[in-house]
C-alpha cells in the first residue's frame, strides 16, 4: 500500500515515467485532460442520465431525439447555452454577478483533486484532505449568496437566503457524520481513509458507519440543493431562486456546478464510506490485495483499471440514489428543513460519534478485531438512538402543530 500513501500523482503513466521530472507537464495533463475533459464530460452525461432515469420513473422515455438514445443531447444543450444571449440586469452588481457562478464552479471542482479514484490517482493528497474537502465545498454557499445578492431581484435574494440557511445547517451534520471515519482512520487524509478500508472493509459495514452514511447522504443531498432540499431554487415558489437572473453560459456554469457537486459528493460518499474502488465484505480490499502488490507501470494499470471501474460504478449507484430520491420526495417546507437538520441530524450525528468510539474500541484498537462484540453493542445503541431522536422530534412536531395559530386542530378544539 506504499503507492497509495505516497504523495500521490495524477495519472499512472505520468507517475511512472520520466514526466515526473517536469511537474508542470503533469499538472497540464491533470487540468486539461481530467478537469476540463473528463469531469465535464461525466457531468454532461450525468444530466443525460438523470433525464433518462427521471423519465423512466415517470413512465416516459426521456430524451431520444438528438442522436441515438438522445446521446448527443448534452452537446446540443451545451451549444444552446453557449450561444444564448448573456443578459445581465442593469441594476445588478456586474462584477459580483459574474463572480458568483465562477465561485460555485470552482468550489465544485476543488473537491475533486483529493478524491482517491485508485492507487495514486488522487491529484493531491494533503494530510488534512477531508477538512480541505469540506472547506472548499462550503465555498459554494458564498457563491450562491453572491449570486442572489448581486442580482437585485427579490426572488434571487429569497433563494440565496434560503440557500445560506440550508447549507450552513446541513454542513454541521455533514461534518459530524464523517467524524467516525476520522476516528477510525486516525487521519484526515483521503488516501489514508482509503487504505484503512482496504484493510478493514468498507466503513459502511458497521452500525455507526451505516448511520453515518445515511446522515452523510441526506446532508449531501441538502448541500447540493437537490430535491427534496431544493428550496433555494424552488421553481414553483421563487422562480429559479438565486439563479433567476442568470441566462446563457452564466446559467450554464450554475448548471455545470450543480451536477459537478453532485458528482463530487457522490465521490465523497464512495471514498469515505463505500471503500473507494474496493469490493464489499467477502472480498475485503480485493482488487488491491491481489493486484496491487506488483511493481512497475503495468501492475499499476492492472490494479487501477478495476479500481476506477468499481469506484465509478459505486458513484453511479450513489448518483442514481440521489435521482431516485429526487423522483420520490416532494420539496420540504422551510421549517421542516431546518428542524430536521437541527433536531434530528445534528443530535444523531453527535450520538453517533460516541457509538463510533465504541466500535473503535471493539474493532480497531485490539490486535484482532472483535466484530461480534462490536455489532452486539453498537447495533442496539444505534437503533435506540435513532428511535429516541425521531420520537422526540415527532412529539415536538405534534406539539408545535397544536400550538400553531393556524392549526386546524387548535381551531377545532377552541370551538
Amino acid at each position: 500500500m506504499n503507492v497509495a500513501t505516497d504523495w500521490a500523482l495524477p495519472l499512472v503513466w505520468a507517475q511512472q515515467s520520466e514526466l515526473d521530472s517536469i511537474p508542470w507537464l503533469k499538472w497540464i495533463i491533470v487540468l486539461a485532460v481530467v478537469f476540463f475533459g473528463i469531469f465535464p464530460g461525466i457531468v454532461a452525461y450525468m444530466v443525460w442520465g438523470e433525464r433518462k432515469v427521471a423519465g423512466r420513473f415517470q413512465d416516459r422515455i426521456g430524451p431520444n431525439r438528438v442522436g441515438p438514445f438522445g446521446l448527443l443531447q448534452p452537446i446540443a444543450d451545451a451549444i444552446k447555452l453557449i450561444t444564448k444571449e448573456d443578459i445581465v440586469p442593469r441594476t445588478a452588481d456586474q462584477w459580483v454577478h459574474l463572480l458568483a457562478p465562477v465561485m460555485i464552479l470552482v468550489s465544485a471542482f476543488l473537491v475533486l483533486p483529493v478524491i482517491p479514484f485508485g492507487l495514486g490517482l488522487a491529484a493531491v493528497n494533503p494530510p488534512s484532505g477531508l477538512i480541505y474537502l469540506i472547506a472548499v465545498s462550503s465555498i459554494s454557499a458564498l457563491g450562491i449568496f453572491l449570486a442572489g445578492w448581486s442580482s437585485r431581484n427579490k426572488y434571487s435574494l429569497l433563494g440565496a437566503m434560503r440557500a445560506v440557511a440550508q447549507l450552513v445547517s446541513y454542513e454541521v451534520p455533514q461534518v459530524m457524520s464523517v467524524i467516525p471515519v476520522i476516528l477510525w482512520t486516525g487521519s484526515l487524509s483521503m488516501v489514508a481513509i482509503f487504505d484503512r478500508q482496504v484493510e478493514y472493509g468498507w466503513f459502511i459495514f458497521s452500525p455507526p458507519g451505516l448511520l453515518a452514511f445515511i446522515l452523510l447522504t441526506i446532508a449531501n443531498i441538502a448541500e447540493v440543493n437537490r430535491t427534496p432540499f431544493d428550496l433555494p431554487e424552488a421553481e414553483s415558489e421563487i422562480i429559479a431562486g438565486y439563479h433567476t437572473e442568470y441566462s446563457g453560459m452564466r446559467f450554464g456554469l450554475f448548471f455545470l456546478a450543480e451536477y459537478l457537486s453532485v458528482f463530487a459528493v457522490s465521490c465523497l460518499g464512495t471514498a469515505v464510506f463505500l471503500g473507494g474502488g474496493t469490493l464489499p465484505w467477502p472480498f475485503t480490499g480485493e482488487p488491491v490485495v491481489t493486484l496491487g502488490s506488483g511493481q512497475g507501470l503495468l501492475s499499476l494499470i492492472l490494479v487501477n483499471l478495476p479500481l476506477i471501474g468499481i469506484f465509478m460504478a459505486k458513484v453511479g449507484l450513489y448518483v442514481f440514489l440521489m435521482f431516485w430520491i429526487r423522483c420520490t420526495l416532494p420539496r420540504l417546507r422551510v421549517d421542516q428543513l431546518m428542524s430536521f437538520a437541527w433536531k434530528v441530524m445534528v443530535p444523531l450525528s453527535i450520538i453517533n460519534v460516541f457509538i463510533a468510539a465504541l466500535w473503535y474500541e471493539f474493532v480497531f484498537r485490539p490486535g484482532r478485531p472483535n466484530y461480534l462484540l462490536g455489532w452486539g453493542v453498537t447495533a442496539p445503541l444505534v437503533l435506540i438512538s435513532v428511535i429516541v431522536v425521531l420520537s422526540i422530534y415527532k412529539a415536538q412536531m405534534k406539539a408545535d402543530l397544536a400550538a400553531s395559530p393556524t392549526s386546524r386542530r387548535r381551531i377545532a378544539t377552541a370551538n
Partner: protein
Amino acid sequence: MGYGRGIIVGHWVTLRRFLRTFFIGHGATLKRRGGGHQLFDLWPGKKKRGEEPTVQQDATTEGLFTVEYPDERLPVYERFRVLPVLVYDDSDGNVRCTCCNICAKVCPPQCIWMTHAAGPDGKPVPLPEDYYIDMDVCMNCGLCSEYCPFDAIKMDQNFELSNYERHQSHIFSLQDLLVSSEFYANTHPEAYASDEQVVERGKVAKKKDQRLQKALGVGAKPASNPKPAAKPAATPAT
C-alpha cells in the same frame, strides 16, 4: 408511529414504477421504434413518413406510455373531427353542395364564405363557384355539417395542418376542401352505413337533382327523370 416508514415505502413504489418500464409494455420489447429519423439510426427498417404504425394505447396500458408521435401515432376514431370538408359523389363526380349558405350562416366564428356558380345563361346554379374556409378561424365545432341539408359538408380528421405560411395557405378553397364520398365512407364507416345517412343520401340526391334541373332550365317538372346532371362548374379534386 411512522419513523419515516412512508418515505421508505414511497421509494419502493417509485423504484417499482421505474423497473416496470423495462419489463412491461413496449419498454420491454424492441418492437416499437421511435427516436425520429437520424443520420445514424439504431433502428433499421423504420417506416417512412406517412407510413408510421398506429399504436393502441388506453388507460390500461402498463409501463411506458409515450407515443412517439411522428414515428408512431394513436388511432383516430370516427367521431374525432377537425376541419370541415366538402364531399362530392364518386358515382357522378358531382359536388353535393348547393351553395345554400346555411353552413356560412350557422358558423359561429363566421369562417365560411362562398359564391354561386353561374350557368350557361348567366343565371346562378345551385353549385359553389368558390367556397372558402379560414382554417385559422374555424373552431372545429361541426355545426356546419350538422346543419347541412345536402350532407355536403362533413368533418374531416386530418389534424396535421401546420404550415410555414399562414396568409394564403390557411384559407382553404374548394380545391383544398373537396373529398370523394368514398374517402368520407372510409374515414367514417359507421356513420356512412347508418340508416339515417343512407336515407338522407337518397333524399339529397333527389332534391339536388331537382334543383339542378330546374336551374338549368330543363323544365319545371318534378324529378321524374333523375338522369345525372351536367358537369358542374367546379371540377372535383381527387
